[in-house]
């Protein structure tokens, strides 16, 4: 009970309710308390190790970035998977496609000529030869046609009647001449009738007509 009164005296003193202490014990306690407060004030503030500080902030940043990338991934993952699927499908469907399909995808004349020329180093099937023969009808660019004819000179034995029929419909003299060069050395197809009809066309260039007549006379 006595201790309770002493503690109350001390608390009232600290709170400013009373301005004096009534016992020696209370005064002693108060003195110890004052010293404690004084000592606490004199303790220097603890500073954090700067390296630890940096590591802390780095950790926070990484955490923040990682959280963002998770969101980013979540957002783009379906699109990425869709794109990968499309690429895979394109690959699967194109894997067995012919040279013709790849050629059709080209947009410029230089690309087409480059593509045709590069076929010189590849094995061509009869389907490829058929396509190249028909391309002589479809394509309009003379330099492309001349490149095709030059490629086909290496496959003379595989050329069929369709190739030789091209001569009748061709109007560009340099292409006509390139075709005639193949006619000149062909032996597996009867070409005399076709050549005769061709050589009688009215609008033939003089050099082309001369060449056609020369081949006819040497048949």
């Amino acid at each position, binding site marked *: 009970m006595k201790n309770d009164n002493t503690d109350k005296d001390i608390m009232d003193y600290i709170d400013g309710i009373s301005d004096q202490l009534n016992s020696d014990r209370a005064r002693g306690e108060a003195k110890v308390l004052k010293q404690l407060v004084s000592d606490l004030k004199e303790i220097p503030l603890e500073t954090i190790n700067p390296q630890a500080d940096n590591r802390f902030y780095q950790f926070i940043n990484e955490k923040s970035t990682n959280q963002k990338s998770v969101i980013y991934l979540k957002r783009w993952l379906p699109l990425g998977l869709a794109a990968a699927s499309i690429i895979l499908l394109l690959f699967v469907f194109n894997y067995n496609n012919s040279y013709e399909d790849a050629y059709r995808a080209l947009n410029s*004349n230089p690309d087409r*000529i*480059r593509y045709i020329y590069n076929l010189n180093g590849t094995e061509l099937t009869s389907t490829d030869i058929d396509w190249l023969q028909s391309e002589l009808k479809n394509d309009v660019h003379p330099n492309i046609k001349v*490149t095709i004819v030059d490629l086909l000179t290496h496959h003379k034995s595989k050329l069929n009647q369709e190739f030789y029929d091209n001569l009748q419909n061709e109007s560009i003299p340099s292409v006509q001449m390139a075709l005639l060069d193949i006619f000149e050395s062909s032996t597996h197809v009867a070409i005399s009738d076709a050549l005769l009809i061709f050589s009688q066309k009215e609008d033939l260039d003089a050099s082309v007509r001369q060449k056609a007549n020369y081949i006819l006379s040497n048949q």
Partner: protein
Amino acid sequence: MKCILLTILLTANAIGFSQQELSEYKDIEGIYITTHWGDIDVNGTDGQEEVFNISAIFTDTSKQPKPIDNLSKYLKFEVLKKKLFITARTPKGFESIDIKLNIPSHLFLEIELLKGGNIYVNNMQHGIEINSLNGSVKLDQIGKYALVNAANGEINARFSHIHKDYPISLVTMNGGVTATLPKDTARDLRLISRKNGYVESDFSLETDKKIINLNIKVYAKQPIINTARINGGGALLFLSTENGPLAIKKTKS
């Protein structure tokens, strides 16, 4: 003498007045010219000297060349998808239209000369494609690539730079073919000269088959048909003529 001078001045004046400005087409990417008879002279311009105009001279059976004042009567100008098409009217009887164009050098150029005339092109840097029936084709300071087809006439093409992946194809029926290239150009060559040919080359030619009359100016009786490479090979350089020599020269730097 005074009379001659006056005539020259009047002609020059008339030509000057007949020049038509084309700067309204400055946003196009290419020019596509189709004519029947007459010379075509195209000059690429760039930088501060860039101009974009056209002039033309008309000649008919009277053989009296006349500068054309009203170009739209003879030539149609049409823009489709950033392409400017300049098309000459279909001639009634003989008429030729000589065309002179100054155009930005960055444009793509395509020329189709359906009947006859010479073609001169200078300083075009973005590729050129030509199809001509009768007449020579002379190209100077050409960039990127060229595809030229001519029936009767020589082809002479000098390149200032070449896109390394783009082919060059110069094909004629009658006449020689000359390609002048930067000295470091690497190409696969396809050389065809069916008759009266030889091959001149400033480049060392790598080939597994002997080239007939290589650097010997004697017209061969037999066809010259070879594949070869210069500077290790690369994109295609296709030179072909039915009748005449072939030449591959180095640009003098």
